[in-house]
């Protein structure tokens, strides 16, 4: 693919980041840890549309939809109370969450309102048990609000403190299961202006914002705790909101693909204009008799209908992004908006469906010319009618260019249609919570206690380590990034060898976590200090460090003696070691002459002693014995 000049196509891109806090829930005192242990209760609710700005017809239709739908909520012991199940009114706001939000607001140089008003945002898909989410603006844009990047300031529009929604567990027909554990967890929602200029710039901006977030102790870390939505448009295109990008690394790809998709859609628009393409109507022809006897399971024994799109041949196989043709894009709309799984069209490889012959007949039957496209769909008549309407509607949108919509990020960096772009959210005041006055005094206090930016803190830490120990920059980097500077200092301070300490704190721990699945987070300073103490007093060999730490992690309450006993450790005496070496030599006599024999022998002996002997000592003995 050729490089796109993003300034030339007028790329506009903004981010919307959602970051969870690790405090209690925003309006009750439930835990926000989402462990989902001990199901405390399960209950089932319905949702009703609520009057307001909605038109009469909309409401009526919505009643129809919601009538048959029900929501089952799971409440876990520590993580949901009657506030979450919408039985009790909200409690007061979590102070720590509020303070964190205000501090973050200051970090981005936003204006904090003098009085905060909690709002209710209507949500009727069941993901908020009450039918609304609570949300508060805690930061408004002013001059120089935003984040400095390598390419100018990316302005920040607003910062909100809101409640997270329920996580969906499963769907069974018209019944949707939700867990209440995530609902109500404080969420910072930060929106930038569309100041991002390229895919890489999007990544840089997101990373920088993430770094600022992570400077605060009340920020939750880990998978799923930060979610980013991206807004993208190019000149002549439309604002597209992409939801659900969890992996930061995906950002540039998403921006790139969306810019490309809009560019290609605009290309199609120009072509259609050139051929004076007219809007099409979903005039369906019943063609079951052609397809009834087909080999294809899609059409066999089903009602099949066809429509003809004049002068459209070839366009459906046009690539919008590397992974997506216009045909697959339209099929995607059909999947989301109707009951059918898709359509089949004449730009496709019809052999794949074993429908070439049938399409041939269809072409004659409908007197289609070469430049016309044929589209068929099978299923119940009403569903097919709806599908064809959706297809034509989407094709007609091509005349205008890019339709405004919300798309879902896929793991491949591509996106797919999710729903139309929502209008301004329906927000109305939360009458159960008083407005919160933010005095100058509170602000001064928060400003005074602003945390050091994590970048700054890490830089200082690295310099400190450099002064104390001679280890590579790369290792220092790892120690700091993993937040192990403190224990590193303690171990070095106790006079342990910096090399062993640093490799233990980096590669050993990483090995234990990744390869052995050890929960290294339970390891406390004591465990490290005792392990290194044992090493110094030669109670354990260096090679045994991973095993000792693993044992500590499995049961953090153990004493060092217990661990050593359990592992059958304690250094093997020189005499015993010699016996083992001798035995190994008799078992493998040919190794004595092998040039690599010493090395292999070492491996064999070490396997037998399993960390209970120092490798250097073993080599010494092997050398002595082999010489003899």
């Amino acid at each position, binding site marked *: 693919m050729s490089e796109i000049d993003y300034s030339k196509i007028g790329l506009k891109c903004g981010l919307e980041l959602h970051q969870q806090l690790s405090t209690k829930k925003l309006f009750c005192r439930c835990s926000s840890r989402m462990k989902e242990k001990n199901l405390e209760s399960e*209950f*089932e*609710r*319905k*949702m*009703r*549309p*609520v*009057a*307001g*700005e*909605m*038109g*009469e*017809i*909309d*409401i*009526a*239709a*919505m*009643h*129809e*939809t919601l009538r048959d739908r029900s929501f089952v909520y799971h409440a876990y012991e520590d993580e949901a109370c*009657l506030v979450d*199940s*919408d*039985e*009790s009114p909200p409690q007061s706001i979590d102070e720590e969450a509020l303070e964190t939000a205000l501090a973050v607001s200051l970090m981005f140089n936003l*204006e904090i*309102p*003098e*009085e*905060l*008003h909690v*709002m*209710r945002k209507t949500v*009727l*898909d069941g993901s908020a*048990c*009450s*039918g609304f989410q609570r949300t*508060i*603006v805690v930061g*408004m844009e*002013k001059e120089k609000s935003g984040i400095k990047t390598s390419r100018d300031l990316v302005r920040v529009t607003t910062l909100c403190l809101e409640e997270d929604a329920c996580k969906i567990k499963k769907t069974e027909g018209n019944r949707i299961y939700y867990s209440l554990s995530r609902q109500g967890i404080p969420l910072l929602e930060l929106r930038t202006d569309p100041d991002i200029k390229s895919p890489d710039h999007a990544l840089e901006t997101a990373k920088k914002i993430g770094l600022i977030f992570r400077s605060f102790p009340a920020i939750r870390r880990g998978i799923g705790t930060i979610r980013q939505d991206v807004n993208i448009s190019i000149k002549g295109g439309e604002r597209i909101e992409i939801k659900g990008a969890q992996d930061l690394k995906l950002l540039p790809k998403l921006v790139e693909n969306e810019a490309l998709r809009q560019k290609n859609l605009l290309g199609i628009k120009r072509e259609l204009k050139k051929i004076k393409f007219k809007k099409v109507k979903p005039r369906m022809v019943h063609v079951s008799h052609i397809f009834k006897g087909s080999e294809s399971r899609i059409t066999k024994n089903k009602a099949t209908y066809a429509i003809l799109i004049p002068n459209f041949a070839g366009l459906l196989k046009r690539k919008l992004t590397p992974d997506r043709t216009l045909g697959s894009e339209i099929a995607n709309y059909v999947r989301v908006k109707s*009951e059918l799984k898709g359509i089949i069209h004449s730009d496709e490889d019809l052999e794949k469906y074993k429908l070439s012959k049938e399409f041939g007949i269809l072409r004659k039957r409908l007197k289609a010319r070469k430049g016309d496209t044929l589209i068929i769909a099978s299923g119940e008549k009403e569903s097919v009618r709806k599908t064809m309407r959706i297809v034509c509607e989407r094709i007609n949108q091509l005349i205008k260019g890019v339709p405004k919509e919300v798309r879902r990020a896929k793991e491949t960096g591509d996106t797919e249609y999710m729903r*139309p*772009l*929502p*209008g*301004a*959210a*329906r*927000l*109305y*005041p939360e*009458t159960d919570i*008083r*407005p919160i*006055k933010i005095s100058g005094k509170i602000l001064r206090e928060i400003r005074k206690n602003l945390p050091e930016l994590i970048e700054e803190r890490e830089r200082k830490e690295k310099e400190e380590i450099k002064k104390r120990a001679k280890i590579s920059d790369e290792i220092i980097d790892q120690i700091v990034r993993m937040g192990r500077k403190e224990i590193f200092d303690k171990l070095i301070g106790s006079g342990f060898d910096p090399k062993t300490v640093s490799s233990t704190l980096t590669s050993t721990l990483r090995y234990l976590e990744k390869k052995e699945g050890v929960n290294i987070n339970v390891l406390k300073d004591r465990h490290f200090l005792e392990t290194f103490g044992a090493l110094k007093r030669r109670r354990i060999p260096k090679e045994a460090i991973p095993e000792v730490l693993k044992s500590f992690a499995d049961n953090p309450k153990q004493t060092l003696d217990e661990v050593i006993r359990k592992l059958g450790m304690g250094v093997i005496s020189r005499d015993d070691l010699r016996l083992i070496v001798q035995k190994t030599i008799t078992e493998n006599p040919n190794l004595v002459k092998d040039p690599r024999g010493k090395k292999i022998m070492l491996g064999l002996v070490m396997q037998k002693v399993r960390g209970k002997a120092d490798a250097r000592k073993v080599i010494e003995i092997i050398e002595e014995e082999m010489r003899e």
Partner: protein
Amino acid sequence: MYSPKIRGMLRRKKIRIGDHVLIEKSRKRYFGMLMPKPEFGDPGTIVIKLDNGYNVGFDVKGLKISKAKFEEPESVEEEMRYELGKTSKSLLKVDFDPRKPKVALISTGGTIISRVDYRTGGVYAVENPKELLHNVPELSKIVNLKMSNPLNKMSEDFDPSDWVSLAKHVARELNSGKKGVIITHGTDTLHYTSAALSFFLKGLRKPVVLVGAQRSSDRGSSDAGMNLVCASHAALSNIGEVGICMHGSTNDDYCLFIRGTHARKMDSERRDAFRSINEYPLAEVWPDGRIEMKNRNYKKRKDNTKVKVDSKFEPKIAILKVYPGADPDVINYYVSKSYKGFVIEATGLGHVPTNGKNEWISTIKKHTANGIPFVTTLQTIYGRINTNVYTNLRILYRDAGAIPGDNMLTEVAFVKLGWILGHTKNMEEIKRMISTNYAGEITKRTLAGHFLY
């Protein structure tokens, strides 16, 4: 309400609530719509709805406000269409069906009948039955509601004169041929009203269904809709009594129809707060119209009988609760304020402090002798008064002359005593009437399943 200073400022600039305004403060500018002051906000703070829909408050100090050109906010149509999901069937406008049975809907205020103005967040009472159909369109498939609004009060503000006018209103509706009556009501004192109507409506043989909501109707999860639907089914049912119809569980599955003299609000928050005490609820009412009877002891509907209102009521009744160390002198105070009768919420099987310096016996005895009745009920809520098991009980009910309230709820005994005293001051007659069952308030048998139903 904004402070006088702000009101003056707005008046001078001819800015009204709902106007689009420009706020200028410390060289920053904000556009938005001027909102009314929320009840408990700081009156010196101006509240604006920003273009993104959020409200924020600005301290009036150093602030400049002026009218701005109003811009129509973006249409929410598309979002709606999304929320409609995969149905796109357009529906006809809803209205009540004149072929459906006529039921009176008497609105007295409260959460259930309120709606929210989404722009301002203010809460208003619904006055037009059609508006109700907006929220609960399925009502039109059940009943033909005729709405009236004789009262608009929070239920904590109710007093006995409200019960009287309500009873008269109900009788008029029923006697003019309605199949039943639904009364929407705040939940705080709903069970007092249900008890009062139970005693006041003489010869009642049609359903009088009181209904409230615990969660406001602006939210998608409100219990108001299902409660109204079930109340409509109950109003057409075969039960010719006064009862409360509200959620039976925390699920949106069924409502309980509880006899008006056995209902009690047992939780300040939950939607299933109203429970039937000391007897089974009359029925489970399901939103699809199923009515499962849970109690065979009820009056059946008889459409051709007329209701009479017998609402003579003596409101000077006090409810007192005894507790360790409670001083009986409070009774003397009430009597000096010309209270005519007392309901005493007693401990255990029906005790009051009987011995020691704070004994209540002599005070009760003294006033009983002067014709002031003392009816006892139970702090335990569940169970029945006993007059024999312990010596102290015998002293209270034989020597002092207190009247055991059997297994009546305190609230019911209070209403009943007021109603009795509206009719007679004769102590023997009062005693007889207290133990007479007028509206199912006394149940002769207690079954195992009654407890915590």
